[in-house]
């Protein structure tokens, strides 16, 4: 059966990590995996640019990492479980890092979660929201 990845493109504010996107993000995600070891984390922290240049990543991917632009990392094939190695290296929790992809700051995001999380109403479809 032919997969239909187009199905996922109408979900607002969401990047589905498809097999195609995984291919695009391979080097970025492999770089992330390297940060599972403490010596590599130390080397990355000491000179991020030099460490990134050891990987066959695109300039856009490297610049997204340097700027901690997690949305751009998702757009260029990163997956959040891999990207978590970057924010773990920064000493950030999932909540702290994930909230940077929303329009909220960390306290606002935490308050939303404590109040029961983001309500799905209005978040099912880009078309319904008038987004492309």
């Amino acid at each position: 059966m032919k997969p239909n990845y187009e199905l996922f493109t109408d979900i607002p504010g969401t990047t589905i990590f498809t097999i195609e996107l995984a291919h695009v993000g391979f080097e970025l995600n492999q770089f992330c995996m390297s940060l599972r070891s403490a010596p590599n984390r130390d080397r990355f922290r000491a000179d991020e640019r030099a460490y990134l240049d050891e990987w066959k990543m695109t300039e856009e991917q490297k610049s997204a990492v340097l700027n901690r632009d997690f949305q751009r990392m998702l757009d260029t094939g990163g997956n959040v479980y891999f990207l978590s190695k970057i924010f773990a290296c920064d000493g950030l929790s999932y909540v702290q890092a994930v909230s940077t992809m929303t329009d909220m700051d960390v306290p606002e995001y935490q308050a939303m979660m404590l109040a029961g999380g983001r309500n799905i109403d209005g978040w099912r479809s880009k078309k319904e929201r008038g987004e492309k």
Partner: protein
Amino acid sequence: MARITAGISTSHVPAVGVAVDMGRTEEDYWKPMFAGYDFSKKWMAENTPDVAIIVYNDHASYFGMEIMPTFAMGLANSFEICDEGYGARPIPPVMGAPELATHVAGSLITDDFDLTILNVLEVDHGLTVPLSLMFGAPDKWPTRVIPLAVNVVMNPQPSGARCFALGKAIRRAVQQFDDDLDVQVWGTGGMSHQIQGARAGLINEPWDRKFMDDLINDPEVLQYKPHLEYMIEAGSEGVELIMWLIMRGALGADVDEVYRFYHVPASNTAVGHLILTPKGSE
């Protein structure tokens, strides 16, 4: 003969492991969530299985992108704990059950499930947080474990129907094992959560509660729920819930509900937890 005595489902939020390891379970934020597992710890102490087949997903902790198996079973004598970027959790290694695992893996492959065999595996929070929730912080885990890793990270994930069928095949395989063993199947992950993008923080309690009802009463229909619905309604990471269908498939047609718990939030996630037993087995 070996028998399936119960199915456990539970979320496997990494921050829960941190709370246990740092002694924060009595803090205001965590206390209500951990209180929801008090019954389960007592029940588990009286119903400790010889082996738990724990269905979980690796979170880019052991598997990189070089190899991405759809279903993979750990056959080793023991499994070390992954460093997920913060240092490894200070918990005991997980002891395997190689005799049962080789039997089950061989049976599943013979039944046309193209399983990947893992003779070396380190396990991450997906497997160890459920152990902590059910057993607390012991010096050694009171049960042996067969890890069953499912790809729920990269789409296409296996279908719900395939997961449910795998659970049924696990039940047959366990029942054909000659040793006298009590075996549980645990389905982990979920419930609704999304940890990426502008929609991060999504929680859908009505959908989650309906999923638990349907898992118990109507899994033959639930198995056909498309991934798209999980992703829209339960968030991009909510698709982990297909792993609960493997647990449910292993329990047979009808089940008794021993316990149910639901709590929001743990970090970014809705926590859901069930203890089910095959009908009439109590």
